[in-house]
């Protein structure tokens, strides 16, 4: 569309006519532009502008009230040498790994269970999906009493089987485990539903062939089901990476803004939130946000490569499938 305007205006000799023709052409398409405008207007106001403004903010020192002071790249220099920021990246990745691997295994088991002939499939499916639509804040409050050190339900159960109580919220590794458990609880059902859909779409002939060839259930799962389910598993990994890099609410409600003992639950986003909105250090907060952006970009590239791979290794998967 933009190309047509210069072409017509080049044909027009008189400058006055050129303006008229050009503007008339431009006006002609206004309804179309108006029709697609809402998205772009909203995006510009609520997406683009904040992004650009945060870039501007990251070069300032600003407490949100007084005058801004331009500090150049100082915030970023601080960020690179900020051990707390690096720790928060480490925490985020640890919690992501600690939650995603068990979650995928559990989700696969649940999906296999639902896929085999059990009764009340519909009810079970809804039940497994429920945690996902529960408010995270409400859930974190419940988990708070669940993990409570001395009077928590979990420690009471551990006591019943003779295990010493764990200081769930006082030890950095226990904190990370607790957060992982919350994430697993929330997302297992969601992924199980996706896996179930994938399982139901698999061609039955392959399984019949495997059965004829004398494969047991375990062999069938590892040699047939899992390779065929690869796209679904990759989808879940990518989705959980997107969610995992943004872990915030669970930590904040369970542990407060500072991330608990030894900063064990201080994720990247929580550190950003705490710096910007609790300490009112908006310039540095914006710099942290851009630090998070870089981490997310790195992960997106890794994910993209992971998703691209099956095409390259296609003959291999096919071979395994057959």
């Amino acid at each position, binding site marked *: 569309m933009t190309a047509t305007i210069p072409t017509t205006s080049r044909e027009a000799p008189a400058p006055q006519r050129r303006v008229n023709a050009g503007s008339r052409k431009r006006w002609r398409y206004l309804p179309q532009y108006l029709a697609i405008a809402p998205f772009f207007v909203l995006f510009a106001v609520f997406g683009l502008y904040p992004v650009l403004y945060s870039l501007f903010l990251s070069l300032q*020192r600003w407490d949100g*009230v007084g005058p801004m002071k331009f500090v150049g790249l*100082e915030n970023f220099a601080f960020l690179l040498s900020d051990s707390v920021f690096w720790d928060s990246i480490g925490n985020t990745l640890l919690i992501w790994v600690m939650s995603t691997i068990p979650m995928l295994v559990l989700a696969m088991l649940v999906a296999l269970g639902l896929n085999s002939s059990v009764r009340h499939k519909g009810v079970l499916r809804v039940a497994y999906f429920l945690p996902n639509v529960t408010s995270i804040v409400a859930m974190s409050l419940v988990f708070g009493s669940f993990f409570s050190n001395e009077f928590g339900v979990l420690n009471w159960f551990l006591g019943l089987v003779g295990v010493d109580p764990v200081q769930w919220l006082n030890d950095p590794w226990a904190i990370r485990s607790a957060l992982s458990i919350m994430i697993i609880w929330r997302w297992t059902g969601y992924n199980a539903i996706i896996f179930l859909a994938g399982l139901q779409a698999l061609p039955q002939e392959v399984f019949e062939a495997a059965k004829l060839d004398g494969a047991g259930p375990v062999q069938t799962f590892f040699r047939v089901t899992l390779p065929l389910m690869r796209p679904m598993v990759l989808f879940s990994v990518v989705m959980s990476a997107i969610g995992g890099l943004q872990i915030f609410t669970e930590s904040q409600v369970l542990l407060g803004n*500072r991330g608990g*003992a030894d900063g064990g639950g201080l994720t990247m986003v929580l550190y950003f939130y705490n710096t910007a909105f609790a300490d*009112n250090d908006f310039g540095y907060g914006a710099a942290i946000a851009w630090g998070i952006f870089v981490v997310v970009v790195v992960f997106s590239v890794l994910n993209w490569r992971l998703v691209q791979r099956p095409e390259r290794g296609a003959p291999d998967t096919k071979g395994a499938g057959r």
Partner: protein
Amino acid sequence: MTLTRRSFLAVTAALGATALGVGACTSPTTANPGKLTLWYSSNGLSEKVLGEAVARFPERHLVPSKVSGELKQRLLAALSGEAYLPDITMIGDDISTYFAAADRFVDLNSVGAQQDQDRYLDWKWQAGRTPGGVQLGFPIDIGPAALYYRHDLFREAGLPSEPDEVAAAVSTWDDYFEFGKRAQEKLPGRYMITDTKTVFTYSLAQESKKYLDKQNRYLSDQSQVRRAWDRAVQAFRMGLTAGYAGNASSSGDSIDRNAAWSTGKELSFVSASWITGSLKQAAPNTSGNWHLCRPPGGPGNQGGSFLAITRYCPDPQGAYEVVKWILGPENQPRTYLELGLFPSSPAVYDDPQLLQPEEFFGGQSTMSVFGAVAKEVPAVYFSPYDITISDTYTDELTNVESAGKDPDRAWDDANRLVERLLRRQGVLA
């Protein structure tokens, strides 16, 4: 066809331009033009008193507006955009954050606040004044500290149990720790101190200097911080702390602590007056068993808030009259009885209504303890960075207490982080 389209477009463009123009001009500076908007957080002011203020000053058109969530975030956003601002707003104990933008608030002295100054605690009044002398905040409430303790358990163990006796036995932090050791020997499995954080916080609250001076320069003498730190570490080393520090949720509540109150595991704790409500709610079964006395180490304050008038308010004088009435000594007792907001006006401390014996505290009058403490609190400058600095120290104390970190390393780490913070903020070169 083209004509109609052109006219249609012209009309659309005209409408768009009008909308833009109107939008740019009508975004009002104050939230309710022609009215007096007052922002307060939930439980920040008595709704009964506010309701009466509306009726009492009909010509001011007062509109109290309870801000759900973080009032501060909303205020910062409104200040940045210079739109939808309140005429009167509540501000927390981090009032010094606004000192750099004092020109956006009304100097209360310009509307006659000096005349009312004498009716309020001097240290609190000073806390609402900028280093340049602008009176930015009008005192709402304060948070005088006291030692809460289980009178019944102390008595059973043969320890001093009447407020005067206990106060005498715990007059310094060292005395308190020694007393705690004795108490814990007699009552094993129970604790005298919530966590290292409370020791650090309330020890520092008793000092007349904190981290920065009024010009926001880092004090060269930080011995008061070291003193508070050493006391906290000492309490931990003596095994007096229960260690409920790390697991306080964002709301500040801790299930373990609530349970420790109702089971009697927490024998005593130092806290500001505003904890009473939570204590009553969490441990109704212990009613009558608590007493309180002057805190170890001396009087200190924690928390409290102010009302401020923004410069966008068209009628600061009228707004001030309303503020003065809402927070006047005649209304503070009602606010205290309704919400537990401790009066900032010392005249109220002798109010017979507030000196009534309280059932929850075994017939003790808590006002007599808190009132005496409140009058003696040292005036101290609370800098915009104080909360972050204190959090840094108490985070490291939590690491010592619950993650087994070496105290010396924790102290070095805390100082390193504080130094980094202050360099980033331009306080340190």
